[in-house]
């Protein structure tokens, strides 16, 4: 059967690091991993999932590093899946989730072999599915979804700055429309007088309340984003930006949406792309509407309550028994060194505690100055 050659990753692009990505053949994908980790302890246990599809699934881990309970749990959950066909790891992901009702991704999917090898080295388990160029990793924490290979290839100053920007970007993506509605709607006294008056000036004669305005602008951005994905390559960028500009200008000139609203929604839309993981970006898009709803009903109080609700929800989640909020809740120093700030490699002597590895120490030795 004809195979696709490994090409540059389509979504997880990197400035530094290898340019190859997984392909649709499970054995080729295994060889990509083994080429990077030619360790005799690297194990790949194969199983079949799907009554009709008979899909090959491989559980890959480092035998001496990974917690055996974790491997056992992964195999147990895989064995429980009784389905006619598995065409993509996303299907397995839904079956294996600790909390089936949450919108947050409780596993990480990557198309980069170097990223998967990095996580295997930390004591995680990779799940490879035949016919898919995506490999799943468990367990993960929210923090893991903000890490990219680039962070480790550049020096720790650049790596840390990029991380901070990502976290800030995500905060803006979720919170900015809600905060705007809360401040304008219920607590304008918290704004500087000149800014408050400027925004009020722009809103004179607007037919809709500000929260409907924000919602309209958000729907427009969502439509453009979705349409941009479906448009033929080559035309999508030109058409997307042209339509965006024309429709945006038309909204402002006809007086349906005010300029400050469009600025806020625009910044929020750009910020939502700062997340390196597409799945978590999608979730934040959903939660943004929840924050918007809370702010529309209860103003700043609703904004704060929805923020705490999201934090509480995340705190209640686990990925294969690992607290999703780690390394901040519970506090894990080894993980904190690789969170908002990426500590230098010579300080990261221990593996993050998230996967409870059998060998907490990496065994790295750095020459003293």
């Amino acid at each position: 059967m004809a195979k696709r050659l490994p090409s540059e990753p389509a979504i997880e692009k990197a400035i530094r690091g290898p340019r190859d990505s997984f392909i649709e053949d499970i054995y080729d994908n295994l060889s990509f991993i083994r080429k990077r980790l030619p360790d005799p302890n690297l194990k790949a246990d194969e199983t079949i999932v799907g009554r009709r599809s008979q899909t090959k699934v491989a559980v890959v881990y480092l035998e001496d590093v990974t917690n055996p309970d974790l491997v056992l749990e992964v195999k147990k959950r895989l064995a429980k899946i009784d389905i006619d066909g598995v065409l993509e790891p996303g299907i397995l992901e839904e079956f294996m989730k600790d909390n089936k009702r949450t919108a947050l991704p409780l596993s990480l999917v990557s198309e980069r072999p170097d990223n998967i090898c990095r996580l295997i080295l930390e004591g995680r388990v990779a799940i490879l599915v035949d016919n898919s160029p995506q490999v799943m990793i468990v367990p993960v924490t929210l923090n893991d979804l903000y890490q990219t290979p680039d962070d480790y290839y550049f020096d720790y100053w650049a790596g840390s700055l990029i991380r901070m920007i990502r976290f800030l970007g995500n905060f803006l993506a979720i919170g900015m429309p809600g905060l705007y509605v809360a401040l304008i709607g219920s607590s304008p006294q918290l704004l500087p007088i000149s800014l408050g008056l400027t925004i009020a000036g722009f809103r004179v004669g607007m037919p809709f309340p500000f929260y409907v305005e924000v919602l309209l602008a958000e729907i427009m951005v969502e439509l453009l984003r979705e349409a941009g994905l479906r448009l033929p390559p080559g035309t999508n960028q030109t058409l997307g930006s042209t339509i965006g500009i024309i429709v945006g200008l038309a909204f402002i000139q006809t007086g349906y949406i005010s300029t400050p609203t469009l600025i806020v929604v625009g910044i929020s839309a750009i910020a939502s792309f700062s997340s390196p993981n597409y799945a978590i970006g999608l979730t934040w898009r959903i939660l943004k509407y929840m924050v918007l709803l809370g702010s529309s009903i209860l103003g700043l109080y609703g904004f704060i309550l929805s923020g705490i609700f999201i934090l509480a929800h995340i705190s209640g989640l686990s990925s294969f028994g690992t607290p999703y909020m780690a390394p901040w809740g519970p506090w894990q120093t080894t993980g904190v060194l690789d969170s908002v700030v990426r500590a230098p490699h010579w300080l990261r002597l221990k593996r993050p505690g998230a996967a409870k590895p059998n060998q907490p120490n990496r065994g790295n030795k750095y020459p003293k100055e």
Partner: protein
Amino acid sequence: MDRLTSKLFIPILMLSFVTFGLSFDRFIIDRSIGVNAYLIIFIGFLITITGLFILKSLAIKYPDRSIIGLGDKLLGPIGKIGTPLWFILIFLLTVVLARRVTDEVSTVILFRTPGLVSILGYFLIVGYMALLGEEALGRLSSVLMMAIPVFLILLVLSFREINFLNIHPVNIYRNLGYLRKWDLWLLIFTPVWILSAFFGTESIRNEFKKVILTIIIGTLILGATFLAIAGVFGPRGIERYQWPVMSLMNITEFASSYLFLNAITTVFFFVFLALSLVTTASFLIFLAKGLGEFLGLKNNQSKIILLAITAGLFALTAIPSLINFLETTSLLLKVASIYTPIYILLIWFSSLLRRKDH
């Protein structure tokens, strides 16, 4: 019965202790207890530390039983009455706490919205947090621990506004009248007693030093805050403010920029609301699980109890006249704060009379 590991218990303990203390500052520092009132926090501290030693001895002697089970086992008929009475007092204390926070929301943010709406929003979130369980609450508290420095920044900035005539630091030995009001200070330590007795069995047994250190740090934060409040406003001045801690922020004038000041106020309010929700949720879990254990219910039945208690808390918090009564008399606050140590002491005395439980 082991409840929480120290990694999760200590953040809950710290946040609940500090938030609860700050929420009830109005009731603790008033002109009736004199200018050196802040000093008797040490009496409350010493009593609480002694209480923790008692709880430790109980945790070692009865490693598989919680305080609710012990009340039932060791006190017999007294436990059958004493435990429900404890629940009622904590229930009412939770109502007052929630009402104080939601009243502040109505004053600061939602002044045109009916108070019922903010109370409803408050209890919807608290109920959800409590439904997630104590482990999730511990993780959330661990994250929110990062907010503690917000209080410390406020404190440090407010120190320059202290008028030493208000606190009379040289008058400590001359005027000892304030010592008569030592019982008021037990109020701020109530979460320490409840949470340590119910959730902290394992931490008290295995990580006692960490628990003590948490209480010391919490007491220092609260003590410094009360000192700042008394120093800035004066004992009589405190009466003017419903929320002295919040008012402290406006008095300090640390930010000349209006936007910056408002941004800090919003962050402070976010932090305080988050911490209050955690504290209320931890009390709610105590009430639901404790009552479930007392009645011998299964875990899923405890969830029904939790929802029922949340509804009850909401209903009671929403009655304005009842809250006014509770707040003006302050009797409930005194009774609840004194009852908790006395009840635990009673259990301990009873345990001394019995042989070790195998």
